[in-house]
């Protein structure tokens, strides 16, 4: 069971602390050299999103749409080269992470922003004990002696529900199962009480029961610690159960942002609709599952949005509206209050005032 740390305040919606985003990504663009020799890969192309304390922001989209690159950019873990930051900023506590020196970044990484990865089996160093790896993180970011650090490590292990933590600190990763290793990863990420947790498909490699336990655990810890979680996943079920705000990405762009209830009630972007339609339903008899492409290949899908044409790279040239000259073709439009959809940037849209996606919504608010 989680134990409340002294000094951790209860979440009170509306307080100033919780009403300001802890992380703000603005118009981020990252590209890579193409190792196969072709043109550069624009992995992220003008993505914007905001994350509030105690909020879970789900980032969904198909493989290669730039979810991980966005998270890794936030950690400044993109190798340069082959990577390159083309434009944009990532604000954390009022500072732009992209402009920080490596030295400053060291204290943020693991200390204030932590990350857990998809591959629990290989994400722990096989030649060090669990304890060594936990202590390494703790000693780096907290001014404590070894004894104290050990205490923190034991507590962190207990927080993520590992029994007999004292004993297990001396064990090696190969002696743990996949679910246990992911718990260790979470303990390691949370031991320094970060403000932001970037969870990159934390449960994809785990089986369903473990998956639920881990997500439950993350939610509890989040509430205790005022932590913002960026939850990257493919799994819409996970999104429905855990997310507060959902950000759908495609081809390095954000195509739709909304709170989880509204998005599931009425997806506006054809790609989002495709995403939902491609989930098999029990009572529908189909000879073939619907793919996202089936939906996005249908021009009628793009006409449903009044006043704007959803942005879509594969649309035939003729079907595109007249674009605003000299500007990026893509713009994230707030089509209704607190709902953003990616649209072609037409001169009419250009005239409208723009607000970047920014939603302080949390499940409890409703």
């Amino acid at each position, binding site marked *: 069971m989680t134990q409340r740390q002294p000094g951790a305040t209860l979440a009170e919606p509306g307080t100033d602390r919780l009403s300001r985003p802890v992380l703000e990504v603005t118009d981020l663009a990252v590209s890579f050299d193409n190792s196969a020799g072709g043109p550069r890969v624009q992995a992220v192309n003008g993505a914007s999103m905001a994350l509030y304390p105690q909020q879970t922001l789900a980032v969904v989209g198909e493989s290669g749409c730039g979810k991980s690159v966005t998270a890794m950019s936030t950690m400044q873990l993109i190798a340069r080269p082959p990577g390159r930051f083309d434009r944009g900023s990532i604000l954390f506590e009022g500072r732009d992470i992209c402009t920080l020196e*490596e030295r400053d970044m060291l204290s943020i*990484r693991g200390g204030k922003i932590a990350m857990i990865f998809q591959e629990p089996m290989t994400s722990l*160093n*096989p030649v060090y004990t669990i304890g060594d790896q936990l202590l390494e993180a703790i000693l780096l970011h907290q001014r404590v002696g070894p004894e104290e650090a050990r205490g923190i490590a034991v507590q962190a292990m207990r927080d993520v529900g590992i029994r007999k933590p004292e004993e297990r600190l001396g064990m*090696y990763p*190969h002696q743990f199962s996949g679910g246990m290793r992911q718990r260790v990863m979470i303990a390691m990420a949370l031991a320094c009480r970060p403000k932001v947790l970037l969870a990159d498909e934390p449960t994809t490699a785990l089986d369903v029961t473990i998956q639920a336990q881990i997500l439950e655990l993350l939610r509890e810890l989040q509430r205790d610690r005022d932590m913002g979680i960026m939850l990257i996943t493919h799994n819409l079920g996970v999104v429905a159960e855990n997310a507060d705000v959902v950000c759908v990405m495609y081809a390095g762009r954000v195509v739709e942002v909304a709170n989880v209830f509204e998005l599931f009630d009425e997806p506006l972007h054809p790609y989002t609709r495709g995403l939902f339609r491609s989930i098999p339903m029990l009572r529908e008899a189909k000879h073939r599952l619907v793919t996202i492409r089936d939906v996005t290949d249908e021009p009628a899908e793009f006409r449903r949005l009044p006043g704007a044409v959803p942005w879509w790279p594969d649309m035939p040239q003729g079907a595109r509206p007249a674009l605003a000259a000299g500007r990026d073709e893509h713009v994230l439009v707030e089509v209704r209050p607190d709902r953003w959809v990616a649209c072609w940037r037409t001169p009419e849209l250009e005239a409208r005032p723009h607000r970047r996606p920014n939603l302080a919504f949390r499940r409890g608010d409703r």
Partner: protein
Amino acid sequence: MISYLLRRLAFMVPTVLGITLMVFMLLALAPGGIGAGLAGSAGQLSDTSKVAQMQAYFEDRYGLNDPVIVQYARWLGRISPVKFGERDLRTPSGERVAPPRAIDDPPLAEAFPAPTAEVAAAPYAPPAGEQLVPEFKKLQREAEGARRDYIGSVRQFRDALAEWAKQQGPSMAGRLDSKGSARTEDFRGVEFPPDSPGYAKLAAAAAAMRAKWFRASAARERALAAFRAGPYPKSGIPLLPGLVSLDTPDLGVAFSKNRPVADLIAAALPVTLLINLIAFPISYLVAVPTGILASVRRGGWLDVGSGFLFLGLYSVPTVLAGVFAIGFLANRQYLGWFPVSGLHDSAAASMTFLPHTDAAGLWHRGYLLDTAWHVALPVLCLVYASFAVLSKQTRASMLDNFSADYVRTAKAKGVPRKDVVMRHVFRNSLLPLITMFVGVFPAMLAGSVVIERIFTVPGMGSLILEAIDLRDREIILANTFMVACVNLLALLLADILYAAADPRVSFNRA
């Protein structure tokens, strides 16, 4: 752990047997067979019958007439630490004394029965304590001489037999082998009519052989009694008294030098090990840091430069480097900076260990520096080739680990780059480096064979090359055995180190 070690050691036995059997067969298959070198040394004698007798003596002494597999079994019996039968004695100087060998009955004894009057020699009476050793030595020499005479007489008897057979016409001559000599087994059961031509000569040879056999076996009896009287302490530890005992392996006596092989190896092995043990750390100390730096700055000048340089060095055969080093660096015609041969100066025995300046203000380099000066070139020629292999491997496994997930985790924890490189990437890259031991060590051992020849260093390499020239089976086999053991132990050490470095490997499950 102990059981793992025992199992690994047990697995080495078939490997060592296999390698020695292979070398044994190779030597036996070679033209001239195992004794080719002996025949050569006997061939310098002028008298042909003397040569034949000498050859017969050697064949008897080293058991060269037996089938190859029997010879190999006998060799194994000597090399095995578990011995059967009577235990050897050991002289105070550590030499091993085997009991006098049994003597077979003379061939065709039934066709040429013994003359009636054969006086038995005086039985052995153990003398007083201090006389035991000289008496035994005397009797041993006598027995050896008598045996030698007897073996020679068997040879003469065979010659007589061959001559007789040729005189009898094709039915008998057909029993001779392709070279026209007689093998006594082929004449078993043959009638030797006393009136046949040439019989007198044959019978005389048989009688002489018989008499010599009698003398030889009597001498052997006495030598055996003297042996059993215990002039020296027994060697080894008995397991079943009189039947099975434990003893150190007996590497035999070199044909060509008439010295125990163990002594030759004991003199040569430290030299080879010295050179290798100096070279080994040097190659790791140069190659591993280079590999690390090359991987950290991938594509940088150090990476590209060391890659080219090391590949170039790797492509220089050891002999080439050796010849150039000797020719240009050591030879007085050119630079003459280093000594051309040997491991020590001729005056090394009288040197002090460390360099010093004597009363007259003269500087003496001392034993240590002298040795270093002598081994510098051999070591240089031994190390350079392994740079490429080791640094390439280091670089490749570093690069592998740089993209590993746990390195990403470490970076995400905020570990500084230097620590990421050393504590995470390098620590994990150590594992394949330990395995590289397996490849580098044998290569160096082999390289030192060549280097010792080039620089005239009296190590295992020189020993083996000399032995090959002389076809000295005992040295070649013992060398193979030693090299295989050293090598296998090095591999075992590598495995133990690997298990120590990688917590995923445990002896209990391996």
